[in-house]
């Protein structure tokens, strides 16, 4: 019996490129991602599940000439060995031969050997929790003693990506990503609070401090008040702003706008680029080099669609303004969709964003201090598009809505269902704070590289009460 050999990522790339050339591919891009992760999950003051996973993903993108165009075949596998790599490459080449010319075909991105190509993959393990886990244990027993319930999840992963192409590109980039999300409930389960944060290495996460914050918030619920649905002055903390802004971010597809089926479509054709979306100096910007929010500095696409094209793998990503000074500046585009729609620039998606308001300063607490009467939210949940024309979304408040009276939090109130458009809110807010790293409750598990300000919206639409507590 032949023993299958696990290849190094670099060998996988080199051998796949050779095999693709031998099989008659005109071009080839190979992506190898080495991922390790470790997580802890707790509920009812005890650990529930936990795991340590290690995975590989190999994607082979092969191109062949097809008439006057180029056809592409894409095959991904969770692991390959020296004996199965040929099958994967052959499958990609065969898929390309079986296909019509690809609409988004472009020359593969030229490149050279980037820094650290020969380095092994970085990795994480359960040891990342060496300090966190004992402190979590202490927080769980403290909560038990003091009569509250803790629930939560901590996750850490490291992805090392290797991208090689027949056009000479060899790029390696390693990214850590982690987050903690923690819920606290009162002894009788009638009140709930939440706190969450993104982290790169857990050195900055203190479970006891998280528990203290949850305790402070549960303390606000000593008094409870019922508030009717309606339009209320509402402070959205950075987490809730990220909940809503992430949806807006995902709607910035340039081809959808050109096709007339996006809130950023212009009646009669074209996009709303250049239009003023907000009278406030609001900016929404992505940049792979943002300190603390660093992400892959080149395009990574295992499939084509929208602003993503497999032909664009390795394309250098640079800082991009989506909205600047309240004006829509750019929508997301691959090289193909930029050409197709006559967009001003090739601006692929970038896996982070910063929403900011020029000149805004202060924190949630400052917004609270300045509000006579209104609501303070914690986070939002189950957000879905109701009307794609206006980006009207619905969703619910979750784990803590508080009454603000005369500049102070004075009680906890019931939850609400809201119907709002994050685009409209950019015009309607009347006060903002400084932009800070934020963790979206709804999307943070998958999209955690965000920074957002707190906002005060004078007429946030709470459509109905929710009995959830």
């Amino acid at each position, binding site marked *: 019996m032949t023993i299958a050999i696990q290849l190094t990522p670099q060998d996988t790339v080199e051998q796949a490129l050779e095999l693709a050339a031998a099989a008659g591919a005109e071009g080839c891009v190979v992506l190898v991602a080495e991922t390790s992760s470790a997580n802890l999950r707790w509920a009812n003051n005890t650990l529930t599940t936990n795991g340590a996973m290690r995975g590989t993903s190999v994607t082979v993108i092969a191109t062949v000439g097809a008439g006057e165009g180029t056809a592409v075949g894409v095959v991904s596998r969770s692991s390959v060995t020296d004996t199965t790599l040929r099958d994967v490459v052959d499958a990609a080449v065969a898929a390309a031969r079986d*296909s019509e010319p690809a609409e988004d075909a472009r020359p593969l991105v030229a490149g050279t050997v980037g820094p650290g190509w020969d380095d092994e993959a970085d990795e994480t393990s359960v040891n990342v929790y060496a300090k966190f886990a004992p402190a*979590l244990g202490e927080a769980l027993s403290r909560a038990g003693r003091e009569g509250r319930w803790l629930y939560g999840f901590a996750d850490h992963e490291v992805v090392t990506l290797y991208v090689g192409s027949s056009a000479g590109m060899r790029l390696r980039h390693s990214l850590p990503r982690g987050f903690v999300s923690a819920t606290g409930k009162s002894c009788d389960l009638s009140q709930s609070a939440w706190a969450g944060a993104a982290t790169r290495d857990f050195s900055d996460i203190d479970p006891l401090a998280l528990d203290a914050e949850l305790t402070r918030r549960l303390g606000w619920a000593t008094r409870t008040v019922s508030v009717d649905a309606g339009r209320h002055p509402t402070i959205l903390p950075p987490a809730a702003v990220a909940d809503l802004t992430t949806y807006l971010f995902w709607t910035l597809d340039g081809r959808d706008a050109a096709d007339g089926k996006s809130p950023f479509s212009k009646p009669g054709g074209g996009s709303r680029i250049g239009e003023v979306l907000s009278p406030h100096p609001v900016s929404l910007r992505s940049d792979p080099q943002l300190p603390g929010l660093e992400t892959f500095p080149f395009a990574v696409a295992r499939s084509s669609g929208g602003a993503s094209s497999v032909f664009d793998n390795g394309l250098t990503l640079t800082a991009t303004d989506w909205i600047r000074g309240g004006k829509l500046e750019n929508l997301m585009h691959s090289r193909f969709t930029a050409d197709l729609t006559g967009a001003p620039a090739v601006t692929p998606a970038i896996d982070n964003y910063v929403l900011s308001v020029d000149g805004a300063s202060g924190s949630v607490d400052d917004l609270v201090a300045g509000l006579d009467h209104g609501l303070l939210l914690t986070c939002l949940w189950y957000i879905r598009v109701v009307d794609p024309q206006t980006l009207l979304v619905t969703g619910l408040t979750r784990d803590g809505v508080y009454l603000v009276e005369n500049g102070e939090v004075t009680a906890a109130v019931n939850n609400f269902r809201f119907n709002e458009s994050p685009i409209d809110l950019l015009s309607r807010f009347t006060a903002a704070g400084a932009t800070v790293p934020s963790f979206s409750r709804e999307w943070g598990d998958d999209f955690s590289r965000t920074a957002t300000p707190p906002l005060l919206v004078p007429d946030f639409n709470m459509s109905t009460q929710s009995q959830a507590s």
Partner: protein
Amino acid sequence: MPDLDESFLALPRHELAAAALQRAKDLGASFAEFRLERIRSESISLRDGVLENAGDDEDLGLAVRVIHDGTWGFAAAVALTVDSAVQVAEQAVNLAQVSRPINTEPIELADEPVYDDVTWISSYEVDPFNVPRAEKVALLADYSRRLLAADGVTHVTAHVTSVHECKFYANSEGTSYTQQRVRVGPSLQAVAVDAETGRFDTMRTCAPPAGRGWEYLTGTGWDWDTELASIPGWLAEKMAAPSVEPGRYDVVVDPTNLWLTIHESIGHATELDRALGYEANYAGTSFATLDQLGTLKYGSPIMHVTGDRTAEHGLSTVGYDDEGVAGQQWDLVKDGILVGYQVDRRMAKVNEDVLGTPRSNGCAYADSSGHIPIQRMANVSLQPAPDGPSTEELISRVKNGIYIVGDKSWSIDMQRYNFQFTGQRFFKITDGKLDGQLRDVAYQATTTEFWGSMEAVGGPQTYLLGGALNCGKAQPSQSGAVTHGCPSALFRDVNILNTTQEAGR
């Protein structure tokens, strides 16, 4: 009847399992289970009849879960060697040991009969992975062109996901099985754009994802020709429809819409892990708490909801679950009263007295070898009335109401009380007859109030298996495919919103 895939059977599944289970036992695990899983998936997308993307994925790996000193430990890897299997068993035990100091609940499992090297294959005819890619693309291109050719259709998107899942499971109690499941999820959507005003709207096929093979795309189990021929007309009517007057209406909900309401307000609410708080930090909890089992009035007395992992073509249907428990069917709501939950072996054991049965109903599932099995949703279905009415008869009982077809937007709170749904088509009902479409409609209600207002369910002739491929739960997040069967049903006095007014316009 298809056979088990030979290339999966060629993997050294028994050898890997034996090595891993032995190592776990040697290290003192009181229980150990091994999974070898291979999931092939293919995603094909067309935009305006032109191929946009075709991806061919395969996820293959092994996992070991142990109970060691009363604590769970889990680990997974992708290398299919005996060394790797042994190492994963060691990592799982190690993780249990690291976790032991912060675990306060000694883990025990409900008993289950041993199934020795059994096999199970889901019900399908044509393996999608045996159909040439070009043939699949050509079919979707044909379907797309039928829509594009019609007046008023500006754009068309087409998508199909196909999945072929092979699993080998073995545990330290002696159970082992090999299981193969196939599912497909096709959809086409037509878009109309008014060139002058910029207003746009969409109309999507209602064909649900199904535990079937490629035959589903060519007419077995769904009438594509009729639906595709009807969509342009429905879309044009929707573009010209009047905006709804918000208020309270009687509604007849078609099974193409009702399945999702069942999923959100019953399916998730009767997951015992949610009711017990295990999802409190993520998916949420449930209003249907364990202390109300047998007494909670979930809905009107005609409401009968079952859980099952046995329905033919069901997306959650299995021979055996990810803890080696055989597929079953049971009641969740009977005569309008909460009478059951979906559980796994640990929850079944801990709550044996309250649940009144010592056995798990087989709802453990992990979406891949890399993830931990958790309690996941069975097929949760609303039963039709044996001699019940047709959809037309239900509509005939409404004087001033709305008939709701097809799912679209969905949202529900963290305890499964307050929900809001939209749909593909809303037909005004006037004096028992359909009276043209309405737009900007959403229905919003509280779960028990809504199901309490259910006056009638349709007969078996209205029954349809709806469902989704992408139900999310747990941290790390896992995706699940699940089916919900239901008849048409009539609800009285439901709150209808106008979404344009909700937007403040």
